[in-house]
């Protein structure tokens, strides 16, 4: 417009009038109006239209004046606060400014952050309170928590806190800038949950969790800021409108319903805030519809309206979402479990959220590990019924309402606080004992875990603490959350004792005994709350663990009992109103596990039809919800396993082939939506490897080998990408065995031997590094690899290999195999060393290697 030479002040005034008048016309009439007004001056029409077009979406433009009186106008930069010299301002929030400072008298010039509290938010009393709480805050010594180092008052009476300086960016901005995917975001979020839980166990509630209090540094380390600060600002000695002021200073966008209503703030409030944060990390937006600039609307929405499920809002989102994921794909990833996890944290009724931040984190872990999650959709009753009606807006403090009303409400709130405090005091002793026990179980245990040889100590710590907790729970039998805590404690103890894979037999028994105790409690909870899905799902998980342990110990009878119970409880959960897919899945899975168990320990011919039925059920479920990628993956895995059993138990080869193909088809669909997902790449490789066994059975050995080489390549790449995850490496080795089996059958013995030798070295190296939990499967693979080597050498000898050396190698490998593990092993991909297999090999070697007969006899003797 400025480039228009004809534009003069007069012409501009005319344009001003025309534009203003035209904007009063309806959009449809506007053009005609302009043409008429501009009397043939087409340039003027164009200019007016350009200007009017700028009005679109500009309602807020320049409407917020920067010149409002700001109480913070004064600056502290360059001045000293206590032992610190202020360097610069870092940020400014509702509670006040955050400054960066260095310790003036310190040779190391340690950098700190200083938070100066606004005078209307906190008085000098805040510092007094800080001094009282200092010891409690000192217990927050945690790598992911920024410590509060000191507190004081500025010259003009503003309280301040000195904290660790963290050079990072808010977690949401970090995720966005680094374009993190869903899994990476969830992993960061888990760390946040664990950290919050750590503080909760020390009876410290954050009260103001939000992305700007959760920073992530360049190296990806999470640091939580301001722990314990909000509490210092909120107390009885405050002026009467104080809580209101604090409430306003807090960030309403992350506040829980109880915070908005001025009710007691508990750990559940932090869990709610975590829910809001997770919502934001997954969808890039707030769970609320209200504009953040309208606190009244927002407060009301927080109390009254359920947010939309995350998966339903991704199409409205533009930025901040997990990157490189198109909305349709993201929607599918969120649908189901992640939706449920977020919505459970965001429940209006604090008692119906996750019981702890750890539980929330654990559910996220379960999602990541493809285990069934605890979260489920809240019942319709709770969503729209009694709870919301009971908590209508009319009973709620109207934040932002008239000041007089707010002051009256604040007095009422204050009085209510007195009564509450009395009750709180009675509970506090009880709570601290409970906190100590929990601390021992979870934190002290974790702290000493890294100390070599600490297993015994860890076990004692956890066992003592659980006993204590158990005693408390015994006196408070009606307190479900306490009973659930004890159950979790026993589950942890079982884990410390090593589960059924633990090295010593005695320990395995103890581990199972702990699980049984957990089970008794879970059963009681389920009995107390027969319609509580969470209780039922927790029971299912414990039963599942116990069933697996018993099965692993070879205690088929006990395993059967638990599996039957899993099925019964799953059916019970399924019979509750509003069954979800997860509940159906639990039922079908229970049937499948039962049949698999039969397959291993019972009559195979009886089990096979059940396996087939379970596979069909899974297939039907998968068809019902084709967008649920985790379900598709689960179904694919089950069909693969079933097809494999069909193949090796004289089932129909054609039928097995149909299931392999169906399994692959399901996986390909999953893979299309998450092409780089390691877990999908892994299952596809495994299914292809199993399918190759079928192909080999039909005689196409070369084709089978090619397929298994491909699968082996993929699995090896996955193991290299994630060296921490031993499961990938185990898969790669198992596929290696299947592959060398084909090589041997094709009489390419030298190739097989060279591959197996290499693998044997890899396993030996890994075995030295591996943790106890993965020792057992490593030993099994070590044995199987050695056995395969023995076979390959034996065959080479048959085919005319150098007699003496080959015989020695074959027998040597067989001795190795017998040292590494008992025979009778079958690996999931096809490496087998069953008794007949071993006997066949021994017979062959006896005939071809007469010099080694003595060694062979020794092996057989040792084995039987």
């Amino acid at each position, binding site marked *: 417009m400025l480039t228009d030479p004809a*534009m003069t002040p007069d012409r501009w005034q005319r344009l001003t009038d025309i534009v203003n008048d035209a904007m009063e016309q309806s959009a449809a009439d506007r053009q005609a109006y302009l043409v008429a007004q501009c009397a043939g001056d087409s340039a003027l029409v164009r200019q007016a239209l350009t200007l009017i077009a700028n009005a679109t979406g500009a309602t807020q433009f320049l409407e917020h004046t920067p*010149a409002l009186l700001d109480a913070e*106008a004064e600056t502290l930069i360059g001045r000293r606060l206590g032992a610190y010299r202020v360097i*610069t301002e870092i940020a400014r929030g509702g509670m006040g400014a955050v400054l960066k400072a260095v310790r003036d008298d310190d040779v190391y010039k340690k950098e700190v952050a200083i938070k100066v509290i606004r005078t209307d938010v906190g008085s000098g009393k805040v510092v007094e309170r800080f001094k009282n709480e200092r010891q409690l805050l000192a217990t927050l010594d945690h790598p992911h928590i920024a410590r509060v180092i000191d507190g004081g008052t500025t010259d003009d009476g503003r309280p301040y806190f000195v904290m660790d300086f963290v050079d990072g960016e808010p977690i949401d901005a970090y995720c966005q800038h680094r374009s993190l995917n869903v899994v990476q975001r969830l992993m960061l979020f888990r760390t946040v949950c664990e950290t919050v839980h750590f503080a909760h166990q020390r009876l410290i509630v954050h009260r103001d969790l939000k992305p700007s209090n959760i920073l992530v540094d360049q190296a990806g380390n999470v640091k939580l800021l301001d722990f314990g600060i909000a509490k210092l600002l909120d107390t009885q000695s405050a002026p009467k409108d104080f809580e209101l002021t604090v409430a306003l200073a807090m960030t309403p966008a992350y506040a829980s319903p109880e915070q908005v209503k001025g009710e007691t703030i508990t750990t559940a409030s932090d869990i709610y805030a975590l829910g809001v944060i997770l919502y934001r990390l997954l969808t890039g937006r707030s769970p609320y519809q209200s504009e953040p600039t309208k606190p009244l609307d927002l407060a009301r929405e927080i109390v009254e309206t359920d947010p939309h499920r995350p998966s339903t809002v991704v199409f409205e989102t533009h930025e901040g979402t997990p990157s490189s994921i198109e909305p349709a794909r993201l929607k599918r990833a969120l649908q189901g479990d992640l939706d449920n996890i977020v919505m459970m944290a965001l429940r209006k009724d604090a008692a119906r959220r996750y019981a702890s931040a750890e539980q929330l984190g654990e559910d996220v872990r379960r999602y990541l590990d493809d285990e069934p999650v605890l979260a489920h959709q809240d019942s319709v009753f709770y969503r729209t019924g009694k709870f919301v009606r009971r908590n209508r807006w009319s009973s709620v403090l109207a934040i932002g309402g008239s000041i007089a009303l707010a002051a009256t409400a604040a007095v009422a709130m204050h009085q209510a606080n007195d009564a509450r405090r009395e009750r709180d005091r009675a509970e506090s002793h009880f709570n601290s004992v409970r906190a100590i026990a929990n601390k021992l179980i979870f934190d002290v245990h974790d702290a000493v875990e890294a100390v070599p040889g600490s297993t015994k100590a860890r076990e004692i710590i956890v066992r003592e603490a659980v006993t204590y907790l158990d005693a408390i729970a015994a006196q408070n039998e009606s307190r479900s959350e306490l009973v659930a805590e004890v159950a979790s404690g026993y589950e942890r103890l079982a884990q410390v004792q090593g589960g059924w894979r633990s090295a010593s037999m005695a320990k395995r028994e103890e581990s199972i005994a702990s699980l049984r105790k957990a089970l008794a409690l879970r059963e009681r909870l389920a009995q107390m709350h027969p319609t509580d899905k969470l209780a039922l799902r927790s029971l299912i998980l414990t039963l599942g663990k116990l069933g697996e342990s018993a099965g692993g110990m070879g205690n088929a009878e006990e395993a059967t009992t638990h599996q039957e119970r899993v099925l019964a409880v799953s059916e019970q959960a399924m019979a509750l109103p509003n069954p979800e897919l997860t509940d159906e899945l639990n039922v079908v899975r229970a049937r499948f596990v039962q049949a698999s168990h039969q397959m291993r320990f019972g009559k195979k011919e009886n089990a096979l039809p059940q396996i087939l039925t379970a596979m069909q059920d899974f297939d039907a479920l998968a068809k019902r919800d084709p967008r649920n990628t985790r379900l598709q993956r689960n179904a694919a895995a089950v069909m693969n396993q079933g097809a494999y059993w069909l193949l090796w138990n004289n089932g129909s080869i054609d039928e097995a082939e149909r299931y392999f193909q169906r399994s692959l088809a399901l996986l390909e669909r999953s893979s299309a939506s998450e092409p780089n997902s390691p877990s999908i790449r892994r299952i596809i490789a495994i299914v292809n490897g199993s399918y190759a066994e079928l192909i080999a059975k039909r005689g196409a050995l070369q084709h089978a080998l090619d397929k298994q080489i491909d699968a082996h390549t993929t699995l090896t790449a996955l193991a290299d990408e994630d060296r921490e995850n031993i499961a990938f490496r185990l898969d790669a080795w198992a596929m290696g065995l299947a592959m060398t089996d084909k090589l041997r059958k094709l009489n390419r013995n030298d190739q097989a031997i060279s591959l197996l030798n290499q693998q044997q070295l890899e396993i030996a190296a890994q075995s030295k590094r591996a943790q106890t939990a993965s020792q057992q499967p490593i030993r099994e693979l070590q044995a199987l690899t050695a056995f395969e080597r023995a076979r390959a050498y034996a065959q080479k000898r048959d085919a005319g290999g150098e007699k003496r050396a080959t015989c020695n190698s074959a027998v040597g490998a067989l001795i190795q195999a017998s040292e590494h593990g008992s025979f009778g092993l079958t690996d999931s991909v096809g490496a087998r060393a069953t008794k007949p297999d071993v006997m066949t090999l021994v017979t062959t070697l006896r005939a071809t290697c007469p010099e080694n007969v003595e060694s062979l006899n020794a092996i057989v003797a040792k084995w039987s």
Partner: protein
Amino acid sequence: MDTEITLLLSRSAQGDHQAASALMPKLYDELRRVARNQLRKERSDHTLQGTALVNEAYLVLSEGKPQSWADRQHFFRLASQVMRHILVDHARARAAEKRGGDAQMTSLDKTAFAFADRYAQQIYPDQPTRESALRLEIDFVALDASLSALRALSPRQAQVVDLRFFGGLSIEESAQILEISPATVKRDWTMAKLYLKGAMQAKGVTHAH
């Protein structure tokens, strides 16, 4: 009102440019002092909205005594301009700092930083302050340049922006100061916003509203 300021105000109201430029830094100090005093005062009426700083400053400076109309008008015009300078200079200084220039922040910068952040929070309440402040630094410089261009076309419209946006005055208050009807202020304000938005977008600054 402080005699020196009153005198300078009267003289600049009569067209003395030297008096006006001598008055600017004093007004700046006054605005800051008012802000600080207000901060210290125990205020019983907690309002959710802040008060326009220039209004508060005027009330304090005049100590309730009636001032001549011309002085009053002049005070608001100048005070709004001072506010604009504070914000724009600050934005420039920060931009220079980022380019590796002189990182020396004047006390004016620091105060302006506080204003800028406060403003940023109102516009981008959901965003981390630092980031939004950075976006605004660009905006303030761009806004100042666009405003100069508008001043050439319509000095009155530019003044409306000074008073409304930088001075924080209402339509009615601005109308009084400029001695025109509120309807005209409204029309000028609408036109100025349309123009500025277009001009700032053309400079490649996206204003996310």
